[in-house]
């Protein structure tokens, strides 16, 4: 199993009392709540944390994209990945992901990812996402065309990376007379592609298709759902006549390690619940605008809506396996058990969440890297060798 340090870069200094007048930290909370002086400190702190991640032994460090929200301060993950490119030397830099349908000109993304891949001499992992529903409100892109634009933008970016230019591109949403990408990617034929998702069937089927075999990442979900979605990927692969290797599967999960279970829960509680119930929470109309998911999926989704629109306590999240929180031994055992069960090749550890301050984040990172990661590496390496 490989380890990636995953960061959301929340605006952790949000005035939680003043902003409580707004039902969600997305789209509607005025940007007057963002203080640039505090924001500047947070950006630099979070970049330091990712750089520390490399020093502590993570295989990769990961950034992502969200718009008009205190949930994450990375409307452009490109900027963050660029800032990390010259400050790191060995870790993979994973953009998880770029919301490709939101760009009217997807070639800009092909260029930017390629530039980072060149600067890092091949350390880029490209992630492609549709962007969650709220981005379609924030950005104005029509959610009804989200899937079409995702597929077309993907095809265009891959073509730009792999086909000798110049060539003409004409699809339903994108038309270019001259596609001729300078620079070409450093990694050939192109950087690895990871696809983070909340478990959309369409996305799993697409990602596992033999034409792509991209790495699928299940993000912040109850353990049972993670297991089910990863299994769906394997089943899709089997249906297409191939076996999905473990490194095609990843799982992003918040983790907090402290000296004991009790201390961990006490220290993490407020910050985790701020993450889940203040930063992440949004109304269903924002999460799932019309057309974002197919009519068929929408009928089923109504049932699950309480999961995102209601509150979740730390205790429930731990119980459901959405959050690993405890002593190093507890967290190690829980992740090992989940790994035995799911055989997931990539663990994306989110070691800062919500309002978790710098000192606790750093201690969490150091404990995780010293007392959790090595044992899991040894365990999974042994069994992966045995299986090979």
């Amino acid at each position: 199993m490989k380890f990636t340090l995953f960061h959301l870069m929340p605006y952790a200094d949000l005035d939680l009392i003043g902003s409580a007048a707004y039902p969600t930290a997305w789209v509607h909370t005025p940007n007057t709540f963002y203080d640039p002086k505090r924001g500047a400190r947070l950006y630099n702190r979070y970049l330091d944390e990712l750089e520390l991640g490399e020093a502590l032994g993570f295989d990769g460090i990961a950034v992502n994209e969200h718009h008009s929200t205190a949930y994450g301060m990375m409307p452009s993950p490109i900027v963050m990945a660029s800032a990390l490119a010259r400050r790191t030397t060995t870790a993979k830099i994973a953009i998880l992901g770029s919301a490709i349908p939101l760009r009217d000109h997807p070639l800009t993304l092909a260029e930017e990812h390629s530039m980072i891949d060149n600067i890092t001499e091949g350390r880029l992992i490209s992630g492609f996402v549709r962007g969650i529903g709220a981005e379609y409100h924030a950005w104005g892109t029509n959610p009804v065309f989200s899937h079409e634009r995702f597929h077309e933008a993907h095809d265009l970016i891959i073509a730009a990376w792999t086909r000798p230019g110049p060539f003409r591109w004409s699809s339903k949403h994108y038309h270019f007379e001259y596609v001729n990408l300078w620079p070409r990617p450093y990694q050939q034929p192109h950087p690895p592609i990871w696809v983070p998702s909340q478990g959309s069937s369409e996305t799993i089927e697409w990602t596992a298709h033999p034409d792509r075999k991209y790495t699928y990442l299940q993000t912040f979900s109850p353990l049972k759902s993670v297991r089910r979605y990863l299994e769906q990927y394997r089943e899709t692969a089997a249906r297409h006549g191939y076996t999905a290797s473990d490194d095609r599967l990843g799982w992003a999960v918040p983790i907090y390690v402290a000296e004991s279970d009790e201390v961990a829960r006490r220290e993490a509680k407020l910050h985790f619940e701020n993450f889940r119930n203040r930063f992440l929470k949004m109304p269903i109309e924002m999460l799932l605008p019309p057309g974002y998911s197919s009519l068929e999926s929408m009928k089923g989704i109504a049932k699950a809506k309480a999961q995102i629109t209601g509150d979740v306590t730390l205790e429930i999240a731990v119980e459901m396996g959405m959050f690993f929180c405890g002593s190093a031994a507890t967290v190690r055992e829980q992740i090992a058990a989940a790994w035995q069960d799911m055989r997931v090749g990539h663990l994306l550890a989110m070691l800062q969440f919500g309002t978790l301050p710098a000192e606790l984040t750093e201690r969490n990172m150091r404990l995780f890297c010293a007392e959790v990661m090595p044992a899991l590496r040894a365990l999974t390496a042994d069994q992966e060798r045995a299986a090979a």
Partner: protein
Amino acid sequence: MNFTLRDAAINGSTMSYREGGSGPPLLFLHGAGGAESALPFLLPFTDRFRVIVPDHPGFGRSPDPAWLDNIHDAAYAYLDFLEALDLRGAHVVGTSLGGWIAIEIAIRDRTRLASLTLVAAAGIRPGDIPTGDLFMWSPEDRVRQLVASAAFADRILALPQTAAQAEVALRNHFTTAKLAWEPRFFDPNLEKWLHRLALPTQVIWGDQDRLFPVEYGRKLAALIPGASFTVIEDCGHLPQIEQSDRLTELVLAHVARAAAGGAAAA
């Protein structure tokens, strides 16, 4: 008298419509919520008109055809529809999204149309006029925001909804987003061609419309040469439901004037 359900073959797909009565054709173009809620308003018109109530492509019982991507596709489908039914001298009543479609049809080809009644119609840039966000509203918010009277909203919300109706509501909302999400309920090029609405046109608005406030209606009416503008009091975005008697009077008067030679619109 009741409506009969029919289908028209349109560009490799079908459009479903209800038809009832006889007389000059009255074509009703429904809003984002679909045609069904307007039927009680429309039924009395069947005494004097051949009333035709289509489900727009992607709404109600009409399939969502592969060619439907934007409001212009809907307008061209209606030009096919007018030909398919060979309608002549049609009086068009369009509400909200349907009013916008009516405008898009009429700027392209008005030869089969006798008059336009645009009720709380979308289509032009709101500019500085604050509008509601239909896509942020929950299903309950939509009812509460779209009618003026809270008691009336309570009564609508108390009506039972069948599973089939819920599914149609979901489809209607999807297709509304397809046509109107971006730009939000307008066509950036529409204002250039509103002078082509050279037929008797009236614009009608509820004084308490919270989706497109009455200033939006005034702006639309001012952009259409010769159009009249009437405000209905104690009325939100859905006059055909909330003030149907008043709207009926206005439609009948407009049709009568148009039939008399369109003098009122001049």
